[in-house]
């Protein structure tokens, strides 16, 4: 904790120091005291909404897909297990950027050849890609959470006459959710950071806006510094929430 505070103070001093040597830094581009600086900041901060909405929808879809993948993935039958295994291995192996290009530029063509005429805009292209790419990890988080519940719980449920669905619903999932939620929230941080890739297909989120401003202002150092700070604040807020969640779940665990 002390180390972190120290580092933050040093970082602030360094930035402030850089600001004073006007030769290399040009903070004027984002100086809120000037009209253009003020407008520029507004322009950059306006990306927050898109980044957050994009991340939230992608995370939600990823949780949904993960659930659809994990349930057959835990079947006792290996042939039912197989497709889910293949999906996870396949999706995990594809880098996000190529997948994003494929979904944005390729998928509409594939759909069109199948007679489905939809255009995928930058927003949905990014949502679909992030959701699919993340869903493999979500599924693994679900699986490890469910499998971490002692086998004795399933056996006890069987002896009081519960079937598989009832065992899952009333015995296993209520216990597993406490172990699933913290890593799932952590995974959300990954989505937020990866959402920056959406900028390359023209999605107007934080990174895209920074790029556009850099092109007009020729001040990459200052603008990208601010961009990083924007992500930093966003991720710190989420990780604060994750920490709180872990504490809450953890204390609950010891109480039961």
């Amino acid at each position: 904790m002390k180390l972190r505070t120290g580092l933050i103070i040093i970082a602030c001093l360094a930035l402030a120091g850089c600001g004073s040597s006007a030769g290399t830094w040009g903070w004027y581009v984002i100086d809120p005291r000037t009209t253009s600086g003020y407008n520029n900041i507004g322009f950059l901060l306006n990306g927050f909404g898109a980044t957050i909405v994009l991340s939230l929808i992608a995370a939600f879809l990823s949780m949904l897909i993960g659930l659809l993948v994990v349930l057959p993935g835990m079947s006792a039958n290996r042939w039912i297990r197989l497709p889910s295994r293949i999906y996870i291995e396949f999706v995990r192996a594809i880098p996000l950027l190529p997948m994003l290009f494929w979904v944005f530029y390729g998928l509409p063509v594939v759909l069109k050849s199948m007679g489905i005429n939809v255009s995928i805009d930058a927003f949905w292209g990014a949502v679909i890609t992030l959701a699919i790419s993340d869903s493999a990890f979500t599924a693994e988080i679900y699986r490890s959470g469910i499998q971490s519940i002692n086998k004795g719980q399933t056996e006890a449920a069987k002896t009081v006459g519960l079937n598989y669905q009832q065992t899952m619903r009333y015995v296993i999932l209520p216990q597993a959710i406490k172990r699933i939620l913290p890593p799932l929230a952590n995974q959300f941080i990954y989505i937020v950071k990866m959402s920056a890739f959406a900028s390359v297909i023209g999605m107007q989120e934080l990174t895209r806006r920074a790029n556009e401003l850099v092109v007009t202002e020729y001040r990459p150092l200052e603008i990208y510094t601010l961009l990083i700070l924007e992500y930093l604040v966003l991720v710190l807020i989420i990780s604060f929430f994750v920490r709180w969640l872990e504490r809450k779940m953890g204390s609950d665990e010891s109480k039961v």
Partner: protein
Amino acid sequence: MSNSGTAIEISQLNKWYGTYHALKDINLTVKHGERIVVCGPSGSGKSTLIRCVNSLEEHNSGTITVDGIEMKDAASINEIRSEVGMVFQQFNLFPHLTILQNLTLGPMKSRGMSKKDAEERAMGYLERVRIPDQAHKKPSGLSGGQQQRVAIARSLCMEPKIMLFDEPTSALDPEMISEVLDVIVDLAEDGMTMICVTHEMGFARRAADRMIFMDHGEVIETGTPEEFFEAPKSERCQQFLSQILQH
């Protein structure tokens, strides 16, 4: 409860774990109302045997018939499980539910009982195991002995004809063993058919009609507690008894 007729019929039962032969040609008949204690060194297959009775372990060959139902498909297994209650070494209570919810879950979800009826029944059995005042606590708030008594009550709420006990006192502190055994003896005196895997020989003398000694997946010796303790026939059984009765 009738004291005639066959509760459990096991014949030529074999169980393998990979290449390990865990149960070898087991034959066992349990009459209604009979109380059986199974003992033997660890790894002898005693837990595996009783876990086969309600199909927590699948056997590889042989037949198991419980209360006239032959175990063959999922439907017959469900039917058998509804006749058989089980108490585990590690209690296996549901930690996220209160004691009362632990007891009512089965009757409500698998038997479709109303909440009111299930709770009434649950309170009845909690009184029987002498902990009605703990009904609204979570399992972690109870001592080991109390948790195991709750586990017994949870099984009884399903009103089984047969109870299986898999080393019910092995995970307990010494001072809590007797409170659990008293409850089991109480059930035995009520005429419940039961198979109990345990090393508590005092309890076996008090409650058992028949002793079964197992070693290396085989039934080595069976007999009344008198025969078994006073005059064990096989050498392995004598050795085992001298080891566990020493202290």
